[in-house]
């Protein structure tokens, strides 16, 4: 049996190595924010706080109460953005919830970022662009799909 067992061990080792090594890189999907992963802290840092390499403006440029009235009454600063988004209703669109845990399609945040037809006001970030890439949107959607945790 020993030779067969050795073959099976080799098979198992090879499978482990192969499984760990063969995956598409999230950084390739994340585009101008290669460190973006589907966690809230990463979205806070890479999207809300940061103007990325494509020139997309940081959200907290307008969504802050530091020295100005926050745009749309929405503050996206560290430590306050999660409570402002998850399960919270939009002031300008009746019935719209910014983030519905588990359901990105129902989340108004996604509609605003993608410029869906049903949004009130402008697509975000405000202006003519650049907007979030499809890869960045995919990662934010995945965060919501996984339950929109404060992780």
């Amino acid at each position, binding site marked *: 049996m*020993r*030779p*067969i067992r*050795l*073959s*099976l061990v*080799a*098979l198992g*080792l*090879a*499978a482990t*190595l*192969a*499984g*760990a*090594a*063969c*995956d*598409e*890189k*999230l950084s*390739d*999907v994340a585009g101008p924010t290669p460190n973006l*992963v*589907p966690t809230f802290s990463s979205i806070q840092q890479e999207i809300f706080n940061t103007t990325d390499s494509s020139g997309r403006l940081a959200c907290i440029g307008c969504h802050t109460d530091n020295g100005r009235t926050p745009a749309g009454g929405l503050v996206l600063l560290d430590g306050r953005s999660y409570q402002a988004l998850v399960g919270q209703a939009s002031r300008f669109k009746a019935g719209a919830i910014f983030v519905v845990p588990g359901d990105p399609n129902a989340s108004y945040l996604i509609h605003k970022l993608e410029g869906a037809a049903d949004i009130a006001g402008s697509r975000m970030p405000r202006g003519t662009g650049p907007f979030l890439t499809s890869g960045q949107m*995919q*990662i934010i959607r*995945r965060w919501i799909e996984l339950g929109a945790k404060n992780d």
Partner: protein
Amino acid sequence: MTRIRTRIACVLIALAFAIPARAADPPPSQAGQSPGVADNGERAKDAKKEPPAPAGTPADASTPGPPDAGAPAAAVQADDPDLDVNLAQPDFMLSALPTTLRVPRNRLTFRLTHRFNSPLEDSGIGDLWGMDSGALIGFEFRYGVVPGGQVGFYRTSDSTIQLFSQYDVFTQSARMPVGIAAFGSIEGTDNFTDTYSPTIGAVISREIGTRAAIYAHPFWVNNTNPEPSDLVDDNSTTIIGFGLRLRVLSATYFVVEAAPRASGYAPGTTHVSFGIEQRAGGHLFQLTFANNQGTTLANVARGGPSGNNWYLGFNLARKFF
């Protein structure tokens, strides 16, 4: 992990089987094989033949020589049963799934695959049922490294390269009802520089006399989902393939295979293929109908497009022995 380290790690799965833990003994006579069957000029298995002489054994001086006493005694070649035609398993592949047929040591085989691009529903006699629309073509070389162990290289015209190896763990015999081969492969797109999908599993076969062989292929195929695993629920696919090769005439076969997804990423429809083939000497020509164009294992695992699309294709195989 850097790209170079990634490639090295992925190639290890194929090499793990290229160096077996033991050299397998030549298989016993195949169950139910008719002795003395000669077909299309090829040697057929003969259950009554003498056991092979060890390799390199010179002719015994005491053995009566051939009638031409002036000719020098030739060295006796070891008889490798893997060189014989297996009427139940004449080829190393069904359509896109492997069999347990062993490649003889130090021998080479070649295979060409075609899957025409236009599905039959969108074509007709005017474009010869898709032949005018081009094809996804592949070529494969397969080599017997050690008795029971083979390695291979397969490249398709969409620049996917698949490296594979297979090792005969159990051979069907009077005491073993099935043959089992361990199988491993790794494929990479863009000439093996991108999107790697390794496969591990087993090929299980049961020969039914010289008339048929049935197969099961429990395979795990990793990285079948083109999206990163962080973004999806399933990044791999487990298939339980099955197949049948039925000898309907002396050298004509009907072949069918399918690869249902047992778990994991399962887009589209389950891979199904059927066809008819003719064996002539060392050649095998197979006309196939499949519900997808996939010929590598990751593509087989991903299945075919939704809807009733069937693609005409053919496989050509040649044994260089």
